[in-house]
């Protein structure tokens, strides 16, 4: 457990030193949302109708942006093999890396989400559900992303490959995340969607670290 926390703390410290890297995800999401009204026009009712979907897609793409570096930096400088020789099994290693990734990119996205939604004229009645759904959905991005990041280690153009590998897996998160917010806005029950998101998160939590560990074993051998 100590090693687990020590690793997370190191990753957070490294992100804090390279603050530009950490902020890229949020800035990217902000840019997408700011540009969107230029594309579809400034009418409030059009914007508010698509707001939930746009915020979710922006968050997903922003999370993807930094995923290919999840293991790559440690792989390149030899840290990964040293980490593998430590007390943590590879699945715990993957879980720690995914947790650090979520703290650096997911958490700021959750904080930014209501502001982005307001910029797209989302009525205030949907904001709390949006934040709740994001809190369940963004960890899925980091966990699933760890699988892709482990699989593309050593490949050229890893970033594009990660996107191809991971985007299909994240579609359920996108569907139920946007649907939960949509339901709250139209006065329907959001709970079923949130529960499905929660179920998806628990499944990813159980399966993704093991899958990522298999990818790491391949890269180390």
């Amino acid at each position: 457990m100590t090693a687990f926390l020590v690793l997370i703390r190191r990753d957070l410290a490294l992100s804090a030193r390279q603050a530009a890297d950490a902020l890229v995800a949020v800035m990217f999401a902000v840019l997408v949302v700011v540009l969107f009204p230029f594309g579809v026009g400034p009418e409030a009712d059009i914007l508010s109708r698509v707001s939930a979907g746009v915020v979710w897609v922006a968050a997903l793409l922003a999370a993807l942006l930094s995923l290919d570096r999840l293991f790559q930096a440690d792989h390149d400088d030899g840290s990964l093999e040293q980490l593998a020789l430590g007390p943590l099994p590879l699945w715990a290693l993957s879980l720690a890396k995914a947790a650090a990734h979520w703290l650096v990119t997911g958490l700021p996205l959750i904080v930014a989400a209501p502001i982005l939604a307001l910029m797209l004229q989302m009525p205030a009645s949907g904001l709390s559900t949006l934040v709740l759904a994001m809190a369940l959905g963004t960890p899925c991005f980091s966990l699933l992303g760890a699988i892709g990041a482990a699989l593309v280690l050593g490949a050229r153009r890893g970033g594009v490959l990660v996107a191809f590998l991971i985007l299909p897996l994240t579609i359920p998160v996108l569907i139920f995340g946007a649907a939960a917010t949509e339901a709250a806005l139209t006065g329907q029950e959001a709970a079923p969607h949130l529960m499905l998101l929660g179920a998806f998160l628990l499944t990813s939590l159980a399966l993704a670290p093991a899958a990522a560990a298999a990818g790491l074993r391949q890269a180390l051998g």
Partner: protein
Amino acid sequence: MLLEAEGLVGGRGGHPLFGPLSLALAAGGALKVTGPNGAGKSTLLRLFAGLLVPMGGVVRANAALRYLGHHDAVKPAMTVFENLVFWRRFYGSDAAAAALVEVGLDRLAATPARYLSAGQRRRLALARALDPAAPIWLLDEPTNGLDADSVGRLEAALARHRSAGGATIVATHASLALPEATMLELGLT
């Protein structure tokens, strides 16, 4: 026995490089592995570390080990001391500032690692690997980029470690004094 190999066959990409070879290393023992490029020296060390799976036979390390590979595993954004402390904490051993003195980096402890020269980075990696808490040290080309003083300090550290009951396998091209070490010369097959 701290390290054991029986009928060990090692290889890369499905091609056997050496073996079958059997060896055992007791407390205080040292094994010096030499041979031309591509003979399998690094592969042998990675097999003992558990990073590779043998193509045949068995390989066992019966105690905690530290491995020094070709890469230094140094984070440029962290200071020299932070780099060392992270690895020591991660492995659950003492974060000893003494390790920096041993490799002559104590005066650079607060310097960000990005300002280190290649030889200084290698010494920082050595400070991580030369951990008294682990009885087994596997060192792959530890003298790469080191000056004569540092090589002398490394020899002294290895001697101290062996007299304290540790064992080491060193793969090297350079002349590194390892008194009473078992020699293993790998050839090209």
